[in-house]
């Protein structure tokens, strides 16, 4: 946005950023971080919003091409459908960085994402440990049509089956809707009042879940044996606050700020002609080659807990850690 000064000159490269949607807390945080990152890195921005519609994304890419952008950052929520567009961009030698998702086919300069399968596994390990390997757990799946949701579901289920066979998992499809999650939770509590753990795949179900627990008098401090363990996902400020208050126990902090920063960082690097190789990075993550010619910077997505203690051999981060983007003002 603030690309004035020497606009049109060769100074700041023009980069097109497509926002995947603007109706969830997480992606809004991302949207908020993009312009400042661009200022910092010295790139000029063209932004579009594809409203979770892959057809709109493709059209937006066309407008980027029309406007002669030098690089594109996007977060395709559908990883199969962008192959034709990637081909077009490749033909015009426009480098692409994808955020959050990895295209099924076609190559990009860099994939910046956190491992969604790791989210599910982390949540599973946390709940498995806290429940001592037995009991009942409910999982609020996102939309079935979301690749990230499916990754989280599958890894959570696999981890449970492997490591905690004594835990029963009720998976409920919720279409990312809080009210649906709340009523399914209530229904499940009616049939299985002894549910001891909740895994929600995103913060969409946060408030409704807490409300149901409160209404059914199931809200006890974590020290109480009657406590129901709740693991959320996203790392928005509200979750951190709830951890502090003992209402939920953990969340995965998706690095919204780093998504913005490093998406632009890599695209600028590509424009400047830099290249990267697999290996650790300077910002605490690792670049891996996921398939021939496709590099992925797997940013750390830490599990946030009240005490920051190690869970199942994995380090966690305390809720008030200043490094968490949810604690930035």
């Amino acid at each position, binding site marked *: 946005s603030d690309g004035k000064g020497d606009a049109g000159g060769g100074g700041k490269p023009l980069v097109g950023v497509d926002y995947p949607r603007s109706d969830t807390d997480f992606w809004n945080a991302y949207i908020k971080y993009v312009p400042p990152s661009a200022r910092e890195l010295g790139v000029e921005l063209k932004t579009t919003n594809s409203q979770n519609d892959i057809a709109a994304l493709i059209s937006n890419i066309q407008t980027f091409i029309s406007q002669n952008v030098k690089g594109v950052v996007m977060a395709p929520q559908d990883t199969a459908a962008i192959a034709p567009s990637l081909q077009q961009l490749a033909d015009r030698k426009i480098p692409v960085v994808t955020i959050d998702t990895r295209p099924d086919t076609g190559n990009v300069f860099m994939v910046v994402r956190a491992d969604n399968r790791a989210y599910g596994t982390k949540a599973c390990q946390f709940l498995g440990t806290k429940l001592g390997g037995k009991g009942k757990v409910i999982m609020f799946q996102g939309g079935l049509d979301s690749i990230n949701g499916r990754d989280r579901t599958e890894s959570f289920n696999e981890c449970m089956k492997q490591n905690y066979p004594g835990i029963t998992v009720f998976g409920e499809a919720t279409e990312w809707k809080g009210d649906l999650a709340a009523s399914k939770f209530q229904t499940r509590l009616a*049939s299985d009042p002894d549910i001891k753990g909740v895994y929600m795949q995103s913060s969409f179900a946060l408030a409704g879940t807490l409300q149901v627990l409160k209404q059914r008098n199931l809200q006890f401090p974590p020290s109480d044996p009657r406590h129901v363990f709740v693991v959320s996902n996203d790392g928005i400020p509200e979750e951190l606050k709830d951890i502090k208050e003992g209402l939920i126990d953990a969340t995965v902090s998706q690095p919204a700020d780093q998504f913005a920063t490093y998406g632009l960082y890599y695209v600028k690097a590509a424009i400047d002609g830099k290249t990267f190789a697999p290996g650790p990075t300077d910002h605490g993550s690792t670049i891996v080659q996921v398939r021939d010619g496709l590099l992925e910077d797997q940013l750390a997505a830490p599990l946030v807990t009240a005490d920051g203690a190690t869970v199942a051999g994995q380090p966690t981060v305390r809720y008030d850690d200043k490094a968490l983007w949810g604690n930035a003002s």
Partner: protein
Amino acid sequence: MSDTLVSTGAPAPTDRPTARRRMPALARLRDLVLVPAIVVIAVVGQLVNPVFLQSDNLINILQSMSAIAILVLAETLVLVTGKMDLSLESTFGLAPGVAAWLVVDPAITHGLGVDLLAGAWGVPVTLLVGALVGAFNGLLIVRYGLNGFIVTLGMLIVLRGLLTGISGGSTFFGLPPSMSYLGSASWVGVPVSIWLCLVAFAVAVVVLGFTAGGRALYAIGGNVDAARAAGIRTDRILFLTLVTASVLAALAGLIQAGRLASIPSGQGDGAIFQVFAAAVIGGVSLNGGKGSMVGAFTGVLLLFMIVNVLTLAGVPAQWTNFLNGAVILVALVLSRITGGKAQE
């Protein structure tokens, strides 16, 4: 006086009158046409999982449907007058959303909201926003004679966009107690939202059945010119109906907000399909002039019972939507067939 002529007049064919006379009883029964379906679902539910008929689960069903039920009530009012209001689903999210925006403190909610008003203003502001949306709809539809479907389709998109705009797409948390009371408190062990929903329907039954205003809705929906000729102030009543419906939608949104203790910017997204399905299954005609509150209530109840049973049955996630849809389709078709006349 006229009897001399009557004697020579043709006596109507013998069997027609009796055939016709059976109609009204049927018409009253039509309100209850879904009861067998509800019983069937209840039996299936109980077989699937003995939890089904426990009071806990029944309260759960009623509570989860209460907000949508009030939305259905609102839409039924509009449908009876022969109009449609698609924008109710957006008002459902926007009205409490605007109130939250005005009252929540950005300091607590990381920059969201403007904290212009005290928390106690939450409820009145919600209802006021509902009234304003309804009045705007009414202005375009009644005053300027624009097609209701079109206007409210446009409003649906605009109002949803407005909520995304003011919320920046984020969820409003930290609602003041006044705003979450209706959706979260309980009276004598039963959630307030259930009481509210039942009272709203009871009032609606009386208003629609036994007041001049209520009957006027049916008259307008049946034949607006005739209603005007009979001295009914059709424009005023249509306007008031649209405003009332929007206020009810705002109230429903408040209940939902209280239940979830938050207002996501997508609140109500897609709900209008469910609302129409419930109303229509319940026997409300899309052409106006026909439909009862009892029917509408059974319609929502049936839909939510189906979802509940599917959840209890643990149907594979990818097939729930299909099964849910299939049951709805069958119910829609059956309700139209048993409801007597096919085309309406």
